[in-house]
């Protein structure tokens, strides 16, 4: 059975939109004298209900927001925002800060230089997350690995390289680097 979105009526004269609405509302049993005596309407209702069930199940599936959402929003409205700055040094002559943007660039370049890493998973820069809680900075990144790579070793190398580059290039000490390989790709 093929339903043309532009077709307003079935061959029997029934209104197609009414039948679709009926199914979406969960009223699959024929209603009214026409539907009760019309085999086309009954067959259409049954078929529509079978097809709609899949869509309905998915559309009503619960989805939870990521745990970081509230914190990110509150950080942004607090004025620090996604381009917040990390303090890396304070001297009597002034403070040195770096932005999250600079941090994630360094993290990305460091991770991509590790053997076995194919690319970042997802879009840059949002695929790399950083969190600064009272000066304790953690980084989390998702990566795609090359097939046959030793993932445990690659993750360890990424962690070591990211920590070293952040310390060397930015003067920033990372408390933790969470590495997740989410896929493999040639």
């Amino acid at each position, binding site marked *: 059975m093929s339903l043309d*979105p532009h077709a307003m009526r079935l061959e029997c004269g029934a209104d197609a939109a009414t039948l679709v609405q009926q199914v979406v509302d969960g009223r699959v049993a024929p209603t009214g004298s026409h539907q009760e005596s019309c085999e086309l309407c009954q067959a259409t209702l049954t078929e529509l209900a079978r097809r709609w069930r899949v*869509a309905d199940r998915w559309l009503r599936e619960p*989805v939870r*927001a990521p745990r970081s959402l*509230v914190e990110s*929003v509150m950080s942004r409205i607090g004025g620090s925002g996604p381009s917040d700055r990390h303090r890396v040094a304070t001297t009597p002559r002034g403070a040195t800060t770096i932005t999250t943007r600079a941090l994630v660039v360094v993290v990305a370049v460091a991770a991509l230089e590790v053997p076995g890493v194919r690319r970042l*998973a*997802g*879009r840059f820069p949002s695929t790399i997350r950083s969190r600064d809680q009272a000066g304790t900075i953690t980084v989390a990144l998702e990566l795609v690995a090359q097939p046959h790579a030793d993932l445990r070793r690659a993750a360890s190398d990424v962690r070591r390289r990211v920590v070293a580059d952040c310390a060397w290039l930015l003067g920033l000490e990372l408390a933790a680097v969470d590495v997740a390989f989410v896929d493999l790709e040639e």
Partner: protein
Amino acid sequence: MVATAGSEAELVRRARAGDRGAFEGIVRCHQDQIYRLSLRMLGDAWDAEEAAQDTFVQAWRRLGGFRAEASLSTWLYRIATNRCLNMLRARPPVEPVGGPEVGAVEGPDHIVEVRSEVASLRVAIRELSTDQRAVLLLRESEGCSYAEIGAILGISVAAVKSRLHRARVCLIDAMAAWA
């Protein structure tokens, strides 16, 4: 997390006065619904989180202009829908790096995914026009009334019904192989 109408009105009143704690309460109440809508509109978890964040940040900035005749949910849906539509319009015509969509990559994973009914459904939803997608999700996923959808999208109830019917029929057609 659900706030009663009274407690929500109180949270809004305090947030408008600059109380960030009250606004955090609003974000906690509505985060799942705004993220869910964004995720289904955009089909990408990273983009969805960005859109949800932007929605709440914009809500905080515009809270002074919020009129109580619309529900807070409807108002937030309007901001989120506009944000998602803008993001969809700004998307390049190529597939995003790192987010291969169904049909973009050949391989075992691809075959498995293509064979799943949910993947077919996602493709069908992605192939809807953005306006149809918004109407469908606001109605079937978020349970908004026709009038609320009309207010969110700035269209008439008749236009809501028409777009909704077309979107439903497109999904029903796409599900023919899985029924």
